[in-house]
């Protein structure tokens, strides 16, 4: 084989190698890829795992704010079951960021990551650049998987058929039942009692969480008593004598309220115990008073 043949064979082999690796790389894409100019549309961002078993995603996506306005990000129905950083966006800096994990991994094809609710300002192709992003394999080592492409295109047209537009949300389901935990570990908030939680919402996505700590058990908590919170949340009551309620609210306003079981209390710290004691004392006093009045009447009658 002469030198020229070697070079040609080398180039072909190199191209085949690159081609092969590209085929097996995880792929990011939008759906739909065409939107109507000026109309708010939810564009879902999908990860095609290309038969790789993926369990962690970290994305930074840059866009031109003069071409696109992002109104909101819907993180409902995402394959990322736990967010390390929930989706955030800035129309000033032109950036969308998020990171999360898929416990157990995902290799079943196309996984929705998040939905960008956006409005395009002009016709033509709008470019999103994927920077400092990575997807990791579910191999116990966090091995980096190939990720393509480096940029995504969204086509904005005067009219797109069929029209995909944002309709008023018909999400009538509350967030999924979730299991908050109160933990006490020296490696988080210096060993304070901390509330940890994560809820899922398959419709419009979680909007916010709120916490209420109460000395008494409640069946209703007024709006003013809730305090917005994020996990992990250090409790105000570090003696663990109060009832803790947490509310997950989705973007359609549906709420799921969950109570955390109270830690073991001394008897004098229990609301019910004092109710019984006070009730008992009042009953005894009432009975004594009744006996006293009866005796008094009896004496009067005897006179």
């Amino acid at each position, binding site marked *: 084989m002469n030198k020229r043949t070697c070079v040609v064979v080398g180039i072909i082999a190199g191209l085949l190698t690159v081609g092969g690796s590209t085929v097996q790389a995880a792929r990011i894409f939008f759906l739909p890829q065409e939107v109507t100019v000026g109309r708010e549309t939810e564009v879902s961002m999908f990860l095609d795992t290309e038969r790789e078993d993926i369990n962690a995603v970290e994305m930074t996506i840059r866009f031109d704010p003069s071409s696109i306005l992002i109104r909101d990000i819907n993180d409902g129905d995402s394959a990322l079951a736990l967010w390390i950083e929930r989706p955030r966006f800035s129309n000033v800096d032109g950036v969308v960021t998020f990171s999360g994990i898929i416990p*157990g991994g995902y290799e079943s094809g196309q996984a929705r990551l998040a939905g960008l609710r956006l409005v395009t300002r002009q016709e033509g192709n709008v470019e999103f650049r994927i920077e400092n992003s990575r997807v990791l394999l579910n191999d116990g080592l966090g091995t980096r998987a190939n990720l393509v492409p480096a940029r995504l295109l969204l086509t904005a047209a005067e009219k797109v058929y069929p029209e995909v537009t944002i309709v008023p949300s018909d999400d009538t389901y509350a967030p999924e039942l979730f299991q908050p935990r109160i933990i006490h570990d020296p490696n988080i908030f210096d060993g304070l009692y901390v509330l940890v939680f994560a809820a899922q919402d398959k419709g419009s996505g979680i909007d916010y969480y709120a916490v209420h700590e109460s000395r008494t058990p409640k069946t209703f908590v007024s709006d003013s008593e809730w305090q917005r919170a994020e996990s992990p949340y250090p409790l105000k009551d570090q003696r663990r004598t109060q009832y803790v309620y947490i509310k997950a609210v989705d973007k359609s306003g549906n709420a799921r309220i969950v109570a955390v079981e109270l830690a073991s209390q001394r008897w004098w710290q229990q609301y019910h115990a004092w109710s019984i004691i006070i009730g008992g004392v009042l009953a005894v006093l009432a009975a004594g008073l009744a006996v006293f009045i009866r005796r008094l009447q009896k004496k009067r009658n005897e006179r």
Partner: protein
Amino acid sequence: MSDVQNLCFRKSETARRVTALFLVTVLAMGAFTGARFVLSAAVNVTATVQITVQSACSDGLDNDGDGLYDYPNDPGCSDPTDTDETNIPPSPPAGGGGGGGGYVPPPIIVNFSGRAYPRSLVTLLKDAGVAVTTVAGQDANFKIQLTSIAPGTYLFSVYGEDNRGNRSALLTFPVNVVAGTVTNVSNIYLAPTIAVDKEEVKKGNVIAVFGQSVPLSEITIGVNSQEDVYVKAPADQNGVYLYNLDTIVLELGQHYARSKSTLEGFISPFSKSVGFKVGTQDVYAPTRKCRRADLNCDGRVNLVDFSIAAYWYKRTLSPAFAPIEKNRLNGDGKIDLVDFSIMAFYWTG
């Protein structure tokens, strides 16, 4: 020595088939419009999981509680593919007013069934949280029913815990749950558990590879080497298998073993990989107090560990937490996406 997944193995054909099956299922379900849906593709492949969906009007259940069920018995069913049995109320007479009842969403039922290990604890995770735990029968079969969930795409994972407390790899599959349907996820076949008795074995000596699977199944154990070694061992009536591997055929250095189970034409996915070294001495495997990614050392990897890691995300580690990160995560002195990926791999919920 850690029991990390071995990258030297190729993905099994079964895993690829399962993946393809899931893909077909998910795509098909995406287009599902209420018609009775049976995944016929599952008939011709050796699938680990089969997913079928039945509409409310063909599931044999009285979904709206009116005493009638399914088409044509229930007047709320327009045809067998209808996903809602709820009877449509007659229109109020003109000019009159009338109160209306509240909307009751059609029920959703998801059934899971498959094989684990005899009398083993089987855990079903829904989007990373423990949804249900159950105990498999002596024949290793288990059944789980899930209700009261909203429509949407869920990531369900199943794992088993054997008689020695070793856990199987998570078997994860996405399921698109549709209102008014019964979804059956069947033929789940959990991977065997696997362990070895030594973390280092003198070349030429024997290392015991053992674990648990379905009773009387055939276990294939693979060990990576210059030429991969594959051996077979039978599981006994309790599903326990043991193979004493002669290491004379292995070169010096680090190796990984993993296993899969076969019974009646069904093949499980491969187990987690367990590592050992072929060297110059025998060193028995220590009993680990805290497993990988178990940051609070409670025997589980779940939201608590995730929250502890999230607390240190992008922060300088404290002197107390740094050794924990070193021993149970990737040991690079910081918490980043790689540590969370390790945690996701060892997740127990």
